[in-house]
C-alpha cells in the first residue's frame, strides 16, 4: 500500500509541470552560469556572506544591537539553510529515477523494487553531501547554534562559500589544481624537512637551550625558519643547531622559489584560456550576440565597418594563433578555438540568447562543418555562411544555413555591370556597398506610428529627399515593390526608403512616436 502511494507520488512529481518548472528555475539560479538572473542571486549571496563576516569582526569589541543579531542568526542562516537544502534537492531527481526504474521493470516483466530504485539516488546525494563544497555549506550554517560559542568561528566558513559565487577565486583554485602533483610533491618535501630539522634541533638543543623544551618547540622553530619568517623567539645556541639552521634556511628559500615558479608557470599557461573563458561568459550574459567564425579578410572588413555599431555583441572564434593575436591587437573580442568542434559552440548560451553565427573561414569544408555543428546544437541559431561557388552555396543551404554569401560571384556580377552598363554600375555599387549617398533603409511603422493610417501619397518623400521603393506588410509579409500610392499604411508595415543617411535619420526622428493629431 505504502509502496503504491510512494510510486504514485513519484509519478505525480515526474509529470507535474509546475514542480519541474520550479525545480528548473532553482537549478538555473544555483548551477546555470548562463542564466541571466543568476548574477543577481550570486551578488545577493556574496552580500550576505560579507555582512555575516563583518558582524563577526565588529562584535569582537562592540555590542551588537538586537536586530543585527536577529539578522545574522535568523535571516542569514535561514537563507544559507534553504540554499543548502535546495542544492541537495536539485543535485539529482528521485522521481525521475523511480519512474525510469518502474518503466524498465514493467518492460522486462521483473518485480519492481522501490528501495533498489531509490538507493542510487540517495547514494549520489550522500556523495554530494560529502563533497568539500557541500561540507562548507553545512559548516556555514553551524554558527547559528549559539550555546557553543566556539561555533562562531565557523562564520569563517561562510567566506569559503565565496568560492561558489566569485569566479576569480574559483578560477584561481582551478589553475592551482592543474599543478596538484607539483604542489603536493613540494608540500611533502617541506613536511619532510620540517620534521627532520625539528627532530634534529630537539636532539641537539634540548639540553643546552632553555627555549626548546619539547619536540613541538623543535617543529615550530623548523617551520618558522624554513618559511623565512624567523620570529626570533627560538634560536639555536649549539654549533650543530646553527648548522641545521643554515641548511633549513637554504632549503626554505629553494622551496619558496619552487612554489612561486610553479604557481606563476601554471598561470601563464592558463592565462589565454582564462581570458577566453571570461569572454565567453561575458557574451553569454547578452540576450543577443554574434559569433564570427574565422578572422580572415571578410571578418576583418566586417568589423572594421561595423564593430562600433555592434558594440561588444560579438565574439570571434579563430583557430590560427597568429590571426588571434592580430585580432587581439586590433582590439577585437577573440578566442583561440576551432569553431568546427562541437564543444566550442556548445559553450555559448544557446538556450537563452539569440545567436547569429557567421561561418566565414577561408575553407568551404570548414564552413559547412561549422553550419552543421551549429544547427545540430540548435535550429534556432541563425547561420550566415560564405561560399566560393554555387555548388558549395547549395550544400551550405542543405546543411541548414539561413543565408549564403558568395563574395566572388557578387563581385564578378558587379565587374560585368561596370563594363557593360557603366552608369548603372555606379548606382548599383553605391547601393550594394551602402554608401551614405544611397543608403537603403527600413522604417518600421510600429516604431514610427505617426504615419499609421496615412495614405502613401500623403507623405511627401521627395520633400525629405527620399525615394520610396516599396513596402512589406508585417515582419514576415510580402514585399511589394513600388505599390499603389493610395494604399493606407498599417501598424506593422515596413517602408523601404533610399536616400542619404542624414535624410533617413531626419525622417525617422520626425515620424517617431504615436500619431495623436492626424
Amino acid at each position, binding site marked *: 500500500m505504502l509502496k503504491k502511494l510512494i510510486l504514485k507520488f513519484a509519478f505525480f512529481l515526474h509529470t507535474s509541470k509546475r514542480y519541474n518548472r520550479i525545480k528548473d528555475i532553482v537549478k538555473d539560479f544555483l548551477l546555470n552560469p548562463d542564466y541571466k538572473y543568476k548574477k543577481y542571486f550570486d551578488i545577493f549571496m556574496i552580500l550576505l556572506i560579507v555582512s555575516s563576516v563583518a558582524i563577526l569582526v565588529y562584535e569582537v569589541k562592540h555590542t551588537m544591537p538586537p536586530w543585527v543579531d536577529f539578522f545574522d542568526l535568523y535571516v542569514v542562516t535561514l537563507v544559507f539553510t534553504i540554499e543548502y537544502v535546495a542544492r541537495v534537492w536539485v543535485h539529482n531527481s528521485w522521481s525521475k529515477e523511480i519512474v525510469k526504474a518502474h518503466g524498465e521493470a514493467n518492460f522486462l516483466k521483473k518485480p519492481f523494487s522501490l528501495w533498489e530504485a531509490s538507493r542510487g539516488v540517495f547514494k549520489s546525494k550522500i556523495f554530494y553531501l560529502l563533497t568539500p563544497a557541500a561540507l562548507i555549506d553545512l559548516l556555514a550554517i553551524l554558527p547559528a547554534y549559539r550555546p557553543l560559542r566556539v561555533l562562531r568561528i565557523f562564520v569563517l566558513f561562510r567566506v569559503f562559500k565565496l568560492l561558489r559565487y566569485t569566479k576569480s577565486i574559483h578560477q584561481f583554485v582551478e589553475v592551482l589544481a592543474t599543478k596538484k602533483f607539483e604542489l603536493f610533491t613540494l608540500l611533502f618535501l617541506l613536511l619532510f624537512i620540517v620534521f627532520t630539522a625539528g627532530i634534529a634541533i630537539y636532539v641537539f638543543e634540548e639540553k643546552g637551550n632553555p627555549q626548546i623544551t619539547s619536540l613541538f618547540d623543535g617543529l615550530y622553530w623548523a617551520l618558522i625558519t624554513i618559511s623565512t619568517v624567523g620570529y626570533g623567539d627560538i634560536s639555536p645556541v649549539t654549533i650543530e643547531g646553527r648548522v641545521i639552521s643554515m641548511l633549513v634556511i637554504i632549503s626554505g628559500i629553494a622551496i619558496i622559489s619552487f612554489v612561486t615558479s610553479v604557481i606563476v608557470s601554471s598561470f601563464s599557461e592558463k592565462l589565454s584560456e582564462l581570458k577566453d573563458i571570461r569572454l565567453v561568459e561575458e557574451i553569454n550574459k547578452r540576450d543577443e550576440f*554574434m559569433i564570427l567564425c574565422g578572422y580572415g*579578410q*571578410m571578418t576583418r*572588413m*566586417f568589423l572594421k*565597418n*561595423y564593430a562600433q555599431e555592434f558594440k561588444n555583441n560579438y565574439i570571434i572564434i579563430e583557430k590560427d594563433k597568429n590571426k588571434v593575436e592580430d585580432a587581439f591587437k586590433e582590439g577585437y573580442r577573440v578566442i583561440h578555438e576551432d569553431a568546427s568542434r562541437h564543444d566550442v559552440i556548445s559553450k555559448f548560451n544557446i538556450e537563452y540568447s539569440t545567436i*547569429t553565427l*557567421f561561418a566565414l573561414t577561408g575553407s568551404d569544408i570548414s564552413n559547412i562543418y561549422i553550419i552543421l555543428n551549429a544547427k545540430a546544437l540548435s535550429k534556432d541559431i*541563425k547561420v*550566415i555562411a*560564405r561560399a566560393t561557388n554555387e555548388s558549395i552555396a547549395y550544400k551550405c543551404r542543405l546543411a541548414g544555413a539561413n543565408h549564403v*554569401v*558568395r*563574395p*566572388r560571384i*557578387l*563581385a*564578378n*556580377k*558587379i*565587374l*560585368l555591370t*561596370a*563594363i*557593360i*552598363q*557603366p*552608369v*548603372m*554600375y*555606379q*548606382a*548599383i*555599387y*553605391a*547601393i*550594394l*556597398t*551602402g554608401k551614405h*549617398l*544611397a543608403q*537603403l*533603409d*527600413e522604417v518600421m511603422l510600429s516604431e514610427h506610428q505617426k504615419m499609421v493610417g496615412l495614405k502613401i501619397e500623403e507623405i511627401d518623400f*521627395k520633400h525629405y*529627399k527620399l*525615394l520610396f*521603393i*516599396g513596402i*512589406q506588410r508585417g515582419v514576415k509579409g510580402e*514585399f511589394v*515593390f*513600388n505599390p499603389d*500610392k493610395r494604399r493606407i499604411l498599417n501598424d506593422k508595415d*515596413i517602408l*523601404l526608403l*533610399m*536616400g*542619404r543617411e542624414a535624410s533617413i535619420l531626419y525622417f525617422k526622428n520626425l515620424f517617431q512616436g504615436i500619431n495623436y493629431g492626424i
Partner: protein
Amino acid sequence: MAYKKRAFMFGYSKSSSFVAQQLSYENLYLTLVLSDDEAYKKAQDDGYIDIKKIDITNDEELKELEVKEDDYLVCVLDDNHYNVFLTLSLHALFPKTVIIALSDSMHTTQKLKIAGAKHIIDLYEVSVNRLYNIINKPVTTKLIERLFSPNEEFSFKEIVIPKGSPIDGIMVDNFNFEEYKVIMVGMIDKRLSNKFLFVTSGVENHFDSGDTIVCIGYHEDLDRFEKFVNRLC
C-alpha cells in the same frame, strides 16, 4: 560583326572565367591577355579566339596591344602584387583608358586606387555590406536579392535620352514617373559632370539629350518607359 566596344581582360582564373564568358555574350570584342601557360591553355580549351600571351611586366609588350581610349582594361589577376603593378603600368601607358580592377583586400583596394584604376570592385566590401543587411535590414536584403536575380520580374535599366525626346528639357522634379510605374534612382547629367547623381542628392537637374538615367521597375514598365523616352517629338 561590328562591336560596340573592346575589352582587354588580364588574367583568366576559375573565378574570373565567369566574367569572360558573360562578356563574350555581349556586343563587345574581348581579348584575353595572359602570361602563364596554364591559363592560356584553359582559355583555349574554353573556346576563346583572341588570346594574347605576353609578359605583363614588360611595357613594350603591353604597348603592342594597341589599346584605344574607349576600350576597357580589366585587371583580374589572382596575385595582388601583379594586379597592382599591371594597373600602374596600364595607367602609365594608357592614361585615358578606363581600368577596372578586382581586389580581395582593403589594402589592395587603396593601392589599386593610387595605381590608377577607375573602378575597383572589392570582393569583400559588397559581401560585408550584405552580411550587415542580412542581420539588420531584412527587407533591403530581399529587394537586393530580387533585383539581382535573373528570374525576377523587376530590375534596373539604363536609358540614354535622345535628342528630341519628350523628356528633353524637362525638370526632373516636374516629371511624373508614377505614370510609368518606374522609380528613377539617378542620372548622369552631361552638363554638370560625368558623375552619377542620385535623385536623393538634392541637386535640381533637368533632362537633356545625352544624359543617362537609371530606373528601377518591372520589366514591362521599364520597356514602356524606354519607348516613351525614345519617342521623338
